């Protein structure tokens, strides 16, 4: 069975096991390694991508569920790394090791689509599935507010 999908705007065809999680298809087969592996169990958010515009955990999304859909990864979020969240992330110096941050940014990008100016509580609700072991949470919160306010702190 062949699966058609779109990844960052490009049409793709996959002919392997439809149970393979989108995460490993992106990482091992397409070499789109911005989407990270953190737990493989839907517990950490490191693998967050957008599927038809909604944030999903790529490690919990078998390819058959992505059939006919549009996948957006951190690599496709903006052309020049200039999405308002990416700019805010840099302005607030959010990353420490950086490993969780693709997932954090993709999760935050989905949040901003539904809540243009999220409250602290809405941020906590939306972001609590994304672990940052380095503990950058307060800057994540700050950067989301910044991006929502047109780049102002």
């Amino acid at each position, binding site marked *: 069975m062949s699966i058609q999908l779109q990844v960052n705007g490009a049409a793709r065809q996959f002919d392997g096991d439809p149970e393979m999680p989108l995460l490993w298809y992106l990482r091992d087969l397409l070499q789109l390694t911005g989407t990270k592996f953190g*737990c493989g169990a839907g517990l950490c958010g490191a693998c967050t991508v957008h599927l038809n515009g909604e944030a999903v955990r790529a490690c919990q999304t078998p390819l058959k569920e992505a059939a006919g859909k549009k996948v957006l990864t951190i690599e496709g979020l903006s052309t020049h790394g200039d999405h308002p969240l990416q700019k805010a*992330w*840099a302005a607030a110096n959010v990353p*420490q*090791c950086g*490993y969780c941050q693709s997932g954090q940014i993709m999760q935050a990008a989905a949040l901003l689509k539904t809540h243009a100016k999220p409250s602290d509580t809405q941020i906590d609700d939306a972001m*609590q599935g994304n672990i940052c072991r380095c503990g950058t*949470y307060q800057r994540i919160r700050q950067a989301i507010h910044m991006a929502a306010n047109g780049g102002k702190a």
Partner: protein
Amino acid sequence: MNATALNRRSFLGTALSASAFVLVARALPGGETEVALADALNGAAWHLPIYMGLDADGTVVVIAHRSEMGTGIRTSLPMVAADELGADWKRVRIEQAIGDKKYGDQNTDGSKSVRDFYTPLRAEAATARMMLESAAAQKWGVPASECSAQNHQVVHAKSGRKADFGELVASAAQQPLPKNDDLKFKAASEYRYIGKGVPITDMNAIVTGKGVFGMDAAVPGMVYASVEHPPVFGSTVKSLDDADAKKVAGVSQTLRIPPLKLPYGFQPLGGVAVIADNTWAAFQGRKKLNVQWTESAHDSHESAAYRKTLEAASATAAHVERNEGDVDAAFSSAAGTHEAAYYAPYLAHAPMEPPVAIAQYQDGKVTAWAPTQNPQAVQDTVAAAVGCKPADVVCNVTLLGGGFGRKSKTDYVAEAAMLSKQLGGKPVKVVWSREDDIKFDFYHSSSSTYFKAALDAKGRPTAWLQRSTFPSIMAMFDPNARYGGFSLGMGFTDVPFEIANFRAENGAAEAHVRIGWLRSVANIYHAFGVQSFADELAQKAGRDRVEYLLDLIGSDRNFVTNPPQMKGFDFETARLKRVLTQVAEQSGWAKFKPSKGHALGVAVHRSFLTYVASVVEVVIDDNGKVKIPRVDTVVDAGLVVNPERAKSQFEGAAVFGAGIALMSEITAANGRIKQSNFNDYRVARINEAPVDVRVTIVKNDSAPPAGIGEPGVPPIAPAITSAIFAATGKRIRELPVKSQLA
């Protein structure tokens, strides 16, 4: 100068043009620094050298020989070089060093990268700058003293002449090397980067997903491996049925990894590897393996029973590590006494990126790509694993998705090398699942600490007895090790209280799981015990906790800790008291009115030569759930190169410490670790972490740079439990808090 065939390319990973010049600096015993032209070294090994070069176009190349795991070190050390050189940050290129003994110890742990390399790096950059200035002076026929380097140019102010570094490199390389004593350093007022900070060099790569972590590295033709490890430390494969595993699409075969030999060190645990053409297939194959394991001496290890043995050891006389006055006499004549025991569990590191590595074995040599804190230990472990010389192992260091001490240990890299050798040289990427990471860590020790004080009429101790018992990191290197070794110098033998009669004892403990250092190491449980007990004494005396701690620390004095720290790093009680006083002011301690379920807690601790005090605000709801709206932390780390990154480390330490205090715990039953992933090994999430962490870095440029990455962690847990007591009257004597307040 004996310019020899020594190839610049052997110092700097990428090609530099022929007219580039490369300097090397090293710290000499006694704090002096020596700088030399790399070409003049003739291959001689220098202890702790660091490398910096200027390419023909003036690009400054700084070798990052320490690993980047989130502290910003790949940025902070080059920043020092750029500033002292008068370089423009935009024209500084940072190259990650491979593992090589010529760099000295590269193990990025112990919060010491800036501490060890600030001075030599400045000397090296000052040398290069003076050579550039001499070159310009020669060119213009003016005295070198009238030339100064700024913004990547040498400027002759009198005539207004300017020359770019690129125009001067070739001639600068021919200038005599200034003598150490003649080095002129820039004034702090001239610094553009030190003390101010620049965005991390990897920022853009990280926010666009292009940064290459170990998990992201790839080599043409590589296969993927997932390793089934022995469920109990010390057991080995008894039998293997891999028929079903090999039926999984994408799985090609299974391979054995031989069992551990004593001493364990950083060797692989042994087991069965599933080889496949992608990670997921390797993971699927693992699930289909049927492995029977041999019995192990650790089969009966059970953490609750083990806790009792630790507590029993801490309850009886043990090995004396420090002894002043006569504690026993003071106890027998005391007006009152107080005693308490504390427990803290095993912890896992759980960096967001699980262990992962690629290795290729070819013709008796190995090339590895790994997120490692310790590339030279990779050389050693890999060499031992495949039977070659450490010098024949090239370890490329990727970005690390967190380390916290886990990635100082190199077992996962050796696995990849062993498998590549068995596969006749095919490159192998070993990927650990999160379950592998949680179940096969080098765990932070569980621990029992015990305290007893004799008290005078004001509730101040006249005698203090403390005991600490925990399985030792040393057991990894010496199977007979039962005592704490260097871990005892971490918040235990260096307790800075001014008490005439003081005794510290260490109980014996046997290790049943792999033990390893985790961010701030034994300071975690020692600060928890010492600060909690001080908190109990303050409460018993009815005294303000900050005032009481200041009284315990006592007079301004410097003492040398046992074992003594580096020169210039006495324990200075005045600095400890200052951070405590300042954090009390910053947090509004004196004016705060606690109410039921809402209070402040405080703790103060020095580790990695840095003085830290934290005040934590807690709010506890009717279900016993703890929220932390605010943490105030005041830090005296001496001179701080990159205060912005330093702050981020202390913000992160508050989150890390909150996880330790409230939720993180590893337990064992039947020798097996019970936790497996973030569902049962809990770490703080955004809605559980401290909300507003306010960090103040004390400006103390006259004191040498001290640690940044670790020392924020130890005060957090005792400050939280101090606040919990103030808010609820419930004394937390064991971590984590979990449901103790429900």
